[in-house]
């Protein structure tokens, strides 16, 4: 799917705006899990435990959970951007 040339400037702007939106959401999660749960709110979260384990919740986020979430964030971004690329006809398959 390729857009007609006259529509390209406008569509590339829309593409970029959408990209920035995805970035804002994913970066908010990134910040919330690592700096939020793992650092700023680690003490209050440590009052809770992951049921059935010895992990204080804040400590677990800092040493395990954050890393798992980082991996998930990157794959979510890969999925979202591949879809967006196809939608706007800027993917590399047609080359």
């Amino acid at each position: 799917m390729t857009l007609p040339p006259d529509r390209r400037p406008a569509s590339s702007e829309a593409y970029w705006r959408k990209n920035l939106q995805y970035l804002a959401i994913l970066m908010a999660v990134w910040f919330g899990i690592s700096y939020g749960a793992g650092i700023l709110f680690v003490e209050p979260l440590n009052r809770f435990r992951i049921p059935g384990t010895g992990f204080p919740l804040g400590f677990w986020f800092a040493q395990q959970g954050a890393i798992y979430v980082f991996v998930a964030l990157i794959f979510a971004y890969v999925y979202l951007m591949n879809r967006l690329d196809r939608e706007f006809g800027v993917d590399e398959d047609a080359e």
Partner: protein
Amino acid sequence: MTVQAWTFTLVGLSFALYIGIAVWSRAHSTKEFYVAGAGVSPLANGMATAADWMSAASFISMAGIISFSGYDGSVYLMGWTGGYVLLALLLAPYLRKFGAYTVPDFVGDRYYSQTARIVAVVCAIFVSFTYVAGQMRGVGIVFSRFLEVPIELGVLIGMGIVFFYAVLGGMKGITYTQVAQYCVLIFAYLVPAIFLSLLITGNVIPQIGFGGVDQASGTFLLDRLNDLHRDLGFAAYTSGEKSTRDIFFITAALMAGTAGLPHVIIRFYTVPKVRDARLSVGYALVFIALLYTAAPAVAVFARTNLLNTVSEQPYSEMPEWFSTWEATGLISFDDLNGDGIIQYVGPRARDAAGAPIENELTIDRDIIVLANPEISGLPNWVIGLVAAGALAAALSTAAGLLLVVSSAVSHDLLKRSFKPDITERGELIAARVSAGLAVGVAGYLGINPPGFVAEVVAFAFGLAAASFFPAIIMGIFSKRMNREGAVLGMIAGITFTAAYIVYFKFINPSANTAEYWWFGISPEGIGTVGMMLNFAVALIVSRFTPPPPAHITDLVERIRVPRGSGEGHGISG
């Protein structure tokens, strides 16, 4: 078979494998030498990136650091993995679309400035050399401890191996060797971790095991460890001692620094497409996470084992590993009260009468991973495997760094700055010669390490965070950012960061305590402030200076969309 026989066998086999790969993957063009012909699959590049990234520090030192600092060690776990999110979302796809060979290539072209290019070259070479000296040192330590050869000979053997595949194969040789090295190092890391987890908690997965029940005491392992820590006068393991603000700033500096390190960034020039670059960062982080989520588990197991083995035990009854490591100077016992019993205690330890107890045992953090199999009585082949894994981690990182140095010289300085008419053949020869020279310098630094290597390596992150990271981000996300803003921003960021570090580490080390730090931020975390300064200076200066020329704004437009990555800006001219 003895430990030494196993070590010789496993290290020998792994080295033979690396050499075999080097012969098979020789580079025939500069494109193959610099970016492996941009033909590496995302999965292979993910593994190579993981090996490139995980150095002797990750393999040998990190679990030890966490083991001794508990929660505070989280800064490395989050900092060194969270940086990959920045890399995937903000840098890798755009840099791949730009399609250059090096990081200074991007900085120089985007900011239409030879000054910017040269500043970037100097930063890249400085960061890479400080880093590589630490790797060579790690190689030397492993050789001397496990194979009982002198450190110098160990470094020379390591240099020989790296020389062979880096000079012959360039990025192509390095990439496929790193894939093999990743497999060796992750196997070597996880096998003892799984053994330990089974021994202590009965759970086969270490990442879950360290939240489980300690089979010896019947309580949760982390609770048991916190109790031990309280009794011996250490801070609680799951809470730590650093201030929240300092933890915050150190983590941010490590994240931005990771995303700004040239040897990591150039790995994403080696995949065929923008889409592959995004996916490849994801794979890289999966491979890295395998080790990084196991490290805190290893730290807890090792800490518990260590306290149980040495605390309040008679020195004369210490097991064999204690004296072998004493001989290397990495562990030392000084019987201050002359009772023949090891008092290993923290700063808050008090006896029954309330008087402070003096600590009698000093343990180097590097022992934790290297001696763990011996401490826990694991089979001899596991010990040999750990040695092979540590060497794989050190050599793979060293090779990646050496390539940055060699391409900075032959490509950024010769081809792009001083001798633009150099032929393809000439540039390839220059790349090989400078790679060879870089190996020589790295080996020299490994044998005669300047006393401050360990200090400087940690700060390479702060410097990368304060220089490259903002310059690249603004180069992609701001069309208005111009030459003046970027150059002054980089200079302000790196000067401020370097000055703060040099003051507290070298000029006035006695003042290096929280009460003298600005806003309680340690030199380890100051890179974050340097980064903010860089952004601020760049944004202000660019408002008062002319906007970038039209062809640069077009360039930024082009790198923002994936289509057309095959051509690449730098490669087609």
